[in-house]
């Protein structure tokens, strides 16, 4: 069973670099979800609203444990481990989140191309299926690992942990993690990133921040992409900015068109500032 969504499927999570043949036994990153159910099977009669009826010789008793355990503890612990690795190597790790089709991959292609001399880039691509994005990134000239989540709707820290091992980013690099296109699920899963970057495009509604507040609340910077299309679409950019400020007053906002490269200087300046290469005045 797929442990991410529970479906009975042969789709497993795969980590591949462009050109690599799919292994017969692909990496499956959800082994920690496999369960041993012997516990339940040792019980004789299956119902639990009693203490003494299932076995005349039993001396059972109930006990309530105050666990106070965070449900996402496992993900968060592994995320912190990833974060420690990034900090030790002085790697700037960015988690890129958005709806599908907002232009994340185009933004990355341009960034890799235009800043090639300034920074070393490594990319983890998250998609349910295909190597398409990884192939695009490889053509742009950066090392990339594609994580295919199968039916899964988000990347988790365990997938990143495995992808980093495969990618082995060097010191002082910039690691882009392009999450699965989805404005809901990835917001809950810390990957160990230094900054979370949310991308929205002007072909979407300007009220996205109000509709999906969790993603915008947990992000550090918002890129509004495809601004070259503003004359042709019904997108009120002032409203969009005010909605963004409403859900997250401390968020930075950068308006760009990745296709025409208009406004990308501001994005590059932000990257350089975060990387500590230069400071914005």
């Amino acid at each position, binding site marked *: 069973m797929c442990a*991410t*969504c529970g479906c009975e499927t042969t789709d497993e999570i795969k980590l591949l670099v462009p050109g690599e043949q799919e292994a017969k036994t692909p990496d499956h990153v959800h082994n920690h*979800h496999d369960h041993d159910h012997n516990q339940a099977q040792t019980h004789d009669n299956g119902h639990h609203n009693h203490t003494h009826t299932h076995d005349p*010789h039993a001396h*059972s008793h109930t*006990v309530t*444990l105050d*666990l106070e355990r965070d449900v996402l503890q*496992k993900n968060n612990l592994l995320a912190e481990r990833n974060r420690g690795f990034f900090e030790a190597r002085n790697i700037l790790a960015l988690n890129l989140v958005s709806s599908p089709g907002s232009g994340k991959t185009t933004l990355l292609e341009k960034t890799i191309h235009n800043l090639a001399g300034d920074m070393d880039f490594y990319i983890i691509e998250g998609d349910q299926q295909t190597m398409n994005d990884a192939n695009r990134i490889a053509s742009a000239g950066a090392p990339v690992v594609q994580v295919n989540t199968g039916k899964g709707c*988000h990347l988790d820290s365990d997938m990143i942990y495995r992808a980093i091992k495969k990618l082995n980013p060097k010191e002082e690099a910039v690691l882009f993690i392009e999450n699965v296109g989805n404005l809901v699920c990835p917001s809950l899963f810390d990957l160990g990133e230094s900054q979370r970057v949310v991308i929205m495009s002007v072909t979407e509604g300007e009220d996205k921040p109000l509709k999906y507040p969790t993603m915008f609340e947990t992000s550090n910077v918002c890129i509004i992409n495809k601004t070259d299309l503003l004359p042709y679409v019904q997108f009120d950019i002032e409203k969009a900015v005010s909605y963004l400020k409403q859900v997250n007053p401390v968020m930075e906002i950068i308006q760009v068109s990745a296709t025409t490269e208009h406004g990308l200087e501001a994005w590059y300046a932000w990257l350089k500032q975060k990387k500590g290469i230069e400071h914005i005045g």
Partner: protein
Amino acid sequence: MHEFSIALSIVEIADEEAKKANAIVEKIELEIGELSGVELDALNFVWEAAVKNSVLAEAEKNIRIIKGEASCLDCGHQYPALQFFSQCPACSSMMTTLTRGRELKVKAITLLTRTKENLKLTTEN
């Protein structure tokens, strides 16, 4: 539908505790904040499929919903919050912090433990 992975993480925690105590889970108590990012309806919807054949298959599930609450760092006012960042209704300051509402945890678990004699019987049988 991240609620399914959330539900599976809950099963995992329960499984761990049940194994540790060699016990059966009678009840699991969850605390879920309204601003945690988990849809309660979605969680309830996937619950049955997630706990199937697990230690939680027969267990009672009790969810306590935690309402959002924020506190103003300027005037100290505490107020109900509907979002992560909010303005203080008393002094209009933006210097506020969410104090409750993001919880997503297993608060408690009730186990039916078995004594050594009982264990012995089970093994012999």
